[in-house]
Each structure stands twice: as C-alpha cells, then as structure tokens.
C-alpha cells in the first residue's frame, strides 16, 4: 500500500523522532512510504485563531502537496482532524471544494490507520514500563478516534497501562490559547500534571505532540520525573 507521510510541522521541526518512528512503523506493516516535500502546516494555528484567509493559504498548499497521494497518514489527531475539516471550510469555494473532499477522505491519524485500514492491532513491539495515556481532545472529539491507540498499546509486550484520572479533560494547550490565556492554561496543565503524577506511571503516553509538549514542559518545570513519549515511540521499540 502506498502511503504519504504527513509529518506535521511540529514533528518535522521540533520532534523529528516522532515522524521517523511513524515512517518506520508504516514500513514495517508493509506500506511503501513517501514524503512530499511541499507539505508545510495544516493551518490550524491560523484557523483556530480566527484567521480564515491566512489558514486557507496553508490549507491549499497542503492539498497541492498531497494531490497525488493515495493515503495521507500523520502522527497527530489534532492536525489530521484539521485536514478533515477542509471540506467544510472550502464548501463554498468552487475551485477547491471537490479537491478538499477528495483530500479529507484519504487522511488518517497513524493509530486509526493501523487499526482501521491495515487491520493491525499488534505491531509486535516490546516496551517495558508502567504507562498512562492522555487522550487528546481533537483526536477523540473531532476525529472520533478513541479506542485505537489503547488497542495498540495493550498489545505491546511489557507495557502496563494504567488509567489517567479525568483522562477526557483538556491539558490546557489549545494552540494560541496557551499564550493568549497563559494563566488559565497554566492552571489546566498543572491539574493534568497532578493527575499524571497520581498514577505513579513512569511514562505519559499520548498521540499528539502539542499536548505532550505542554504537559511534559510543565512536569519538567515542576521537577516531576515522568517521561513523556509519543505513542509511535512505544510502537517502534523492539
């Protein structure tokens, strides 16, 4: 199966390992993976801040970059969720409406793709440790991907998965919210950090680097010794 990797700008620039792990997992389950170099950002920072015209420019760039892809797979529920909104955003644009629909239909978040498209729930990895999982808001509520990451995690040899209290609550990142409303954001992430600490897990696992860099950055600031890892790292460890 031919898959184009959507690295997300965050993983491309800050967390290259996340994109590398995603690529290697896809290859291991038998996909032929390319990486269109014209890809940039899904447009979410501008879109969620109310800058529709600016957001549309990056969205058009993304549709051009992946025009010939069969599948587009990325390691972030939030960014992939944004791609899935393109048909709504371009519904009244005769030039882009059709392309937006075609594009959105071929986009998948990595755990969703593994479970729903490839039919894989055990990637054959081994990872020793007690982990807890933060389910990202956009991934579960906008993309509707809830069970897939946990199905994959439960099948990793050596992983002990413990429930995170109030798992469904937002970590307080919210993109520009974190800098527009820093005081509220800090309260939210501190609460999340407390809940993570309560689990006594060694690792906090998530499927979105946005949330993870928020929670991880806060926990490090508080001197808490919990390692923060993207789910692809666990799925790509042998």
């Amino acid at each position: 199966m031919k898959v184009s990797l959507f690295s997300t700008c965050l993983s491309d620039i800050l967390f290259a390992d996340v994109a590398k792990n995603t690529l290697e997992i896809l290859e291991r389950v038998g996909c032929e993976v390319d990486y269109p170099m014209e890809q940039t950002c899904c447009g979410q920072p501008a879109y969620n801040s109310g800058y529709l015209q600016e957001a549309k420019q990056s969205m058009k760039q993304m549709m051009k970059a992946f025009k010939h892809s069969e599948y587009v797979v990325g390691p972030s529920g939030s960014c992939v969720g944004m791609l899935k909104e393109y048909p709504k955003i371009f519904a009244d644009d005769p030039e882009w409406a059709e392309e937006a629909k075609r594009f959105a239909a071929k986009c998948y978040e990595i755990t969703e793709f593994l479970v729903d498209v490839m039919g894989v729930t055990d990637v054959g990895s081994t990872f020793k440790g007690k982990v807890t999982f933060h389910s990202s808001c956009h991934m579960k509520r906008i993309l509707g991907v809830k069970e897939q990451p946990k199905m994959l995690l439960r099948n990793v040899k050596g992983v002990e998965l413990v429930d995170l209290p109030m798992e469904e609550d937002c970590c307080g990142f919210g993109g520009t919210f974190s800098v527009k409303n820093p005081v509220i954001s800090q309260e939210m992430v501190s609460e999340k950090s407390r809940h993570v600490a309560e689990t006594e897990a060694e690792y906090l696992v998530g499927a979105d680097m946005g949330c993870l860099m928020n929670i991880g950055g806060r926990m490090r600031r508080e001197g808490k010794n919990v390692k923060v890892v993207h789910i692809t790292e666990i799925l790509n460890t042998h």
Partner: protein
Amino acid sequence: MSIKLGEVPYKDRVQTGIEDDFMRQAVSSAQGRFRNGRLTQAAELGNWEDWRELGSEIRTHTLQNLDYYLQQLSDNVARRGGHVFFAETAEEANQYVKNIIKKKQAKKVVKAKSMVTEEIGLNKALEEVGAEVVESDLGEWILQLDEDPPSHIVTPALHKNRQQIRETFAKKKGYTGSDTPEEMAAFAREQLRQDFLAADVGVTGCNFAIAESGAVTLVTNEGNAEMVTSLPDTVISVMGMERIVPTWEEMEVLVGLLTRAAVGQKLTSYITAITGARLEGEIDGPEEFHLVVVDNGRSKILGTEFQSALHCIRCAACINACPVYRHIGGHAYNSIYPGPIGAVITPLLEGYDDHKELPYASTLCAACTEACPVKIPLHEHLIRHRQIIVEQEKKAPTAEKLMMKGFAKWSSSPGIYNLSAKMAKPALGPWTKDGMIENGPGPLKDWTDARDFYAPQGQSFRAWFKQRQKDGETS
C-alpha cells in the same frame, strides 16, 4: 441587572477566579457530580446519541418555523384567557411588567427561577416602581440576599459553600442555626412561605412553552414554581422567544434531555404547567395571566450561521463539562450566561465591545459540543466569533495580525518553510540547555513563564529523510 455583570477587566476577573480557592473547590466538586450524573443517566437511557439527534431535530424544526409556533402559542394563550405581549427589547418587556404591577398596586412580587428575567434586569425595574421582589429558588434567594450575581445557569449559587451561605443567612435574616443544608433549607422554606402568602404577583420564567396548548412549563426540584403560580392572583411568565416546542410530545423528549443533561436526573421533582388564566367553571389557575415573549436580540440571530445557538435548552451540560469554567468560575465571564454557551450567546446578544475576550476563553477542546444534548456545535461557534472579531470587527491585536500574515506566507511557501526548518535549531541555540528552553525569547516567553519548551531535537525530519533517500540511492 443586565447580561453584563460589571466593569472589571477580563484579566482581573480571571485572576480573581483563579485565586478563589473556595469557589474553585465548590465548582470542581459540583462539576464532577453533574458530569457523572449526566454520563450515568445517558448510559442508562441507552441510545443517547439518537436522543441527542432527535433533540437537535426538534430544535431545528421549531426554530425554522418559529413565527408559526409563536403565533399558535399566542392564539392559544389568548383563547385560555391569558394576555400575550411580544417585547422587542428588555426595556419593553420591563415596562409591560411594570405597568401590570402599577395597575395592580402590587407591593410584593415572588419569582421562580428565570434566566431571562436576569437578562432583562426585571428585578431592578420592578423595585423602581416600589415593588418588593423576592426570589424563591433557594440558590437565587441566597444570591439576592447577598447581592451577588449568578455564576451558573442551573445552580446559580454554585460558587458558594455552605459556610458562606450560613453567614449570609445570619447577617441578612438573623439565622442562628447550623450550616447543615437541611437546617438552612428548612429556614429558607419558612421565610419564603410568608412571602408566597403575601405576594400580589408571581413571576416565572419558562422552560418550554407548548404552542399546541398554550401552556408554559417550568422544571424545578424545589416546587417553588408551584407556589409562585398558585398563590398570587396574578401570574406573569417571561420567556425568551425561542423557548417553545410544537406539542407535548416534543416537550417530553426535551425535558428528558434537559433533566438528564443538567443534573443527572431522569426527571425533576416538579414539572409545573400553567395554561392561561382561570376560566369560568375552573377550580385553579391565576385570575390573571400574562405571557411576555422576549426578543432582546434573538431574532437577529435567526437565519445566521449562529442560529443553532438558539437551540439551547439551558441545561448547563457544556458549563459542567468545561475545564476553563472549572478554573475561573462563572463570574469571570462577566455575563449572566457563563461557560461555553455564554461565550457563544453573550456577544450575539450584547455585541463584541464588552465581550470580545469570551470566544477566546476556550481551548476548543470540544467537551462542550460533546456534552450538549441538542448538539449545538459550541466550539465551532467560538471559532466563528473569532473570525468575526478578526475580519469584521478588526479587534485583533496588531502583533497577532502580523504574526498570522507571516504564518500564511511561511506555510504557503515551501522554500521559506524549508529554511525555517533548517534554521530553527541554530536560531534557538543561545536559549537552549540540555535540549530544553527555560526562558524563551519573544513569543516563547508566555510559554516558558509556566513550562519548559522543547528545543528542536536535531536536524528536521525532512533533512533526515532527504539524507536517508540519498543513502538509499548510493548503497
């Protein structure tokens, strides 16, 4: 009171909320209780998503045919001996009620809980013509004694704990008992009983008006609405113009969604219906009944992309699910309608000038949208507000506008993007220690005030990928 609570700036309101440990504790535990109640009830009912869909369809249909149903309601209330007044503004609504009070020479007015009368500032208007107004919902009564605005649309005194309530009772009503809820509630009942008996006029809100029969229904747990509508000779119900359903059948669906979503109950203790005035030969009902249908900005929402915001049945499930509300409390929104639904409808009803921060008081986590029993896409409405603030109202900060222009250029030009991917690590080098940035420059500062920032791990993924391809070709 009107929709807006006061003149304190947004940042100060947020800070006050965050520093109020009592309030946060009270809100957090109430949220947890309501949230769990809703989830348990939804699971027990089964097919919750189908019920939500049905609720959404009923609201959509009603709003699309609002003129028809309002006419039907009005005809039926008149047929049952009631008077109907359509008020375009808060002032018109207040004036109409004031005229009744004056005509009746009413000294005392008892009220059942009503958000729309808070919205139009009815109490103050009635006090201006010399009437004593007594709130009879326990939460509202506490707030009235304390001269404090509501912080929640279902449980208005949510932000207060029982010690604070005891103090208020002691100070304002000479209460000497303990701070147990039972004893304080018994005291309130005793006090309010006198008011019910002495009242000349009863004022209520309206949960659902039934177009087919002309009934106004009220959903309560305390039974105070029964007293308000059965003891005084004159009853006045005030409703937002969208609070209407075609028949009892739709009411049954919506009331089931309301009580489950609001407080995790299958049904509340009381559902009161008043259908017009007491006609000849009838044994109950008020001698005189008035229905005031309030527009106050609602009709200008009809037909816009915000129309679904009028679907709201005031259950507060969105408020109970909101983590931002949990940390800052209701007063920080500076609106009698707080939380996600408040952030959506307050600017629609009162404009952006005083409320431009509200649409940003959300991480867009969509917990509100998920909780809403009539499927209002609340977080999408918040994004729409932001678009209007940026593009039509031109209220966005200049630095942000410049940054977003830069973003558009960056993300639509692969060349510039590539360069930034290459430069990110060296550019952040001076601030980086052990792969982390603890004191970020420029726009990173707000981030690093509260948490560390991850510096780029090494080369960008795309650089690595290019190298990998090159190595693949040569090996």
